[in-house]
């Protein structure tokens, strides 16, 4: 059976409620989905919840998925949405009442550590749509067309969003984004 036929068969069975078929369908996109959730949420249990919720939501919405389309951007968009929901509703965002000082790894130089903390803090402060765009492009290494599909915008708009995100991290920063 060719790969296309195999995927079509998995899709048909998954739509009919076949759990193992849906699990097989999802397997290739599970890693990028989890990495996306981790980057967005910075919390493993929360990321697991988001991906699991996204898995079941996507299963329920599978009838809306077009045969022959790429599953990855479709599923990542659902994961991203779950992460946004989690960030709005979850208690953990409000947790750090007692300011816990960061642990400084002994091996790190003070400057490098400060840079990393600074950059991580900057990522924390980014609007979530900007963080999502940077994650898709620089962490998951998706082509810009696929980034656009996850963001639900045109490739040009996706590029602009990435540029704006970079500028928000460090004003004046310019990096090449594939045309």
């Amino acid at each position: 059976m060719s790969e296309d036929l195999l995927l079509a068969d998995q899709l048909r069975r998954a739509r009919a409620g076949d759990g193992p078929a849906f699990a097989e369908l999802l397997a290739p996109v599970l890693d990028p989905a989890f990495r996306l959730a981790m980057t967005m949420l910075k919390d493993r249990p929360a990321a697991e919840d988001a991906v699991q919720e996204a898995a079941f939501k996507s299963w329920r919405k599978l009838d809306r998925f077009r045969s022959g389309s790429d599953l990855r951007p479709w599923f990542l968009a659902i994961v991203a949405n779950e992460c946004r929901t989690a960030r709005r509703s979850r208690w953990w965002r409000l947790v750090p009442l007692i300011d816990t000082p960061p642990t400084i790894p002994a091996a790190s130089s003070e400057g490098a550590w400060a840079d990393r903390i600074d950059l991580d803090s900057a990522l924390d402060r980014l609007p979530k749509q900007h963080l999502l765009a940077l994650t898709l492009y620089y962490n998951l290494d998706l082509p810009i067309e696929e980034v656009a599909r996850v963001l639900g915008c045109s490739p040009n708009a996706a590029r602009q969003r990435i540029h704006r995100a970079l500028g928000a991290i460090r004003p004046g920063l310019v990096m090449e984004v594939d045309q």
Partner: protein
Amino acid sequence: MSLDERDLRRALDARSGEPSGAFRARLSTALEAGRPVARTTPTLAVVAAVCLAVVTVGVLLLAGHGARVTHGPGPASGPRTQTTPTPAAAFAFGSMAMFGEDGWAVTYQSAGPIADLLRTGDGGNSWVVVTPQIAKGTFIFGFALIDGNRAWLMTANDSLGSGLADLWATADGGQTWSQTTAPAIVFRGALITFSDGTNGWLATPGEPASQYQQQGIVIDRTTDGGKTWQLVAQTDFPPGRSTAGAPSVNCGKQDLSFLNARVGWLTGGCTGGVTFDMTTDGGVTWRAQSLAAPHGATFSTDCEGGPCSLSAPRFVSAGYGYMVLNDTEPTANRSWIYVSPDGGRHWTLHAVPGQGTRVTMVTASVGFASLATTDSAGRWLYRTDDGGTSWQPVIANVQLSPGPLDCVSVSRCWALSQSQAGSSAQLYETTDGGRTWTAMTVG
């Protein structure tokens, strides 16, 4: 200070991570089941945390109630990161809570108090002592484990009833701790619980009347994650008087849990009865919620010959919750589970095999019961697939004397098997729902 693409990729990568094997397995099991399962976090995490905290404090209170606890080791030497050897014989590897591959355990001093808090990041294969540096003359008397990274400890000096409690919080798996003193909380033993990261309750029971037939309690609440605490309810706890709508004074206070920031329960048990008070306003006012007694009798009959104990509800979803009643009345002497399908509004009673049984529900359907002592057929583990209505024995490859049992899925659980002397425990793991248990070499 320059930022280039490599730095950005590195920073994003540092936030990222791969899905754990446990999560893959859980998701796969859930998908194969063809329906959503109750999420194990954060609800279960909080549930486990609450359970452990309360159990720990409960054990301490029961074991050394009112006594001056002899403080064992000197102060912990700050955040320590070395891997511990197998706990020494003088320490009991007493409680544990797992959150996927991450987990926590505590060791107890032989005299009762908690000796150390340990953490694992690899499913229990190795453990690191993460006890914060506490002052000499103080001891750890309670903990709440929120998830794999967040935990709370309570410490106090060894002059019970006179010292203030300190609260310690970590958000990074115990690598770093922050300390705060809960104002006006004088330690007489306490129950600590959080429904989430910001809403928490610290309940301080008073001196009990004879046989724990009555006991006052002060309940403080935080809505900012522990920065500030406010007294919200008090039951005849000198020098204060009871506040309006305070919990019942009857029975010793045993357990406290909250489903969310508003809805919670306080339980108590004594010879001749149990108390089960519910709040729907975050702990300010409480009222007794009715429960059916076993055998269609009354609690005064059922608990007549020995004290009953009632755990506070644990929820594995927003709807399904459960709690365990242990009845030590000589002729009954068995365990029961109350289950609620509707967020704690209504409770149905079912019998659970054994006596003093520990129950761990994983989903609204599936749960495990580990017996305090094996039954006549030598079985120690039972499983329910119908939410606690019926229980079937699990034929396990080893016979354990299980202490705490914790599951992160319907197939993967850990159990601490107590030694005969009760001073140490062997950690076991199952990945097939309890049929095969493997002793873990902790090191």
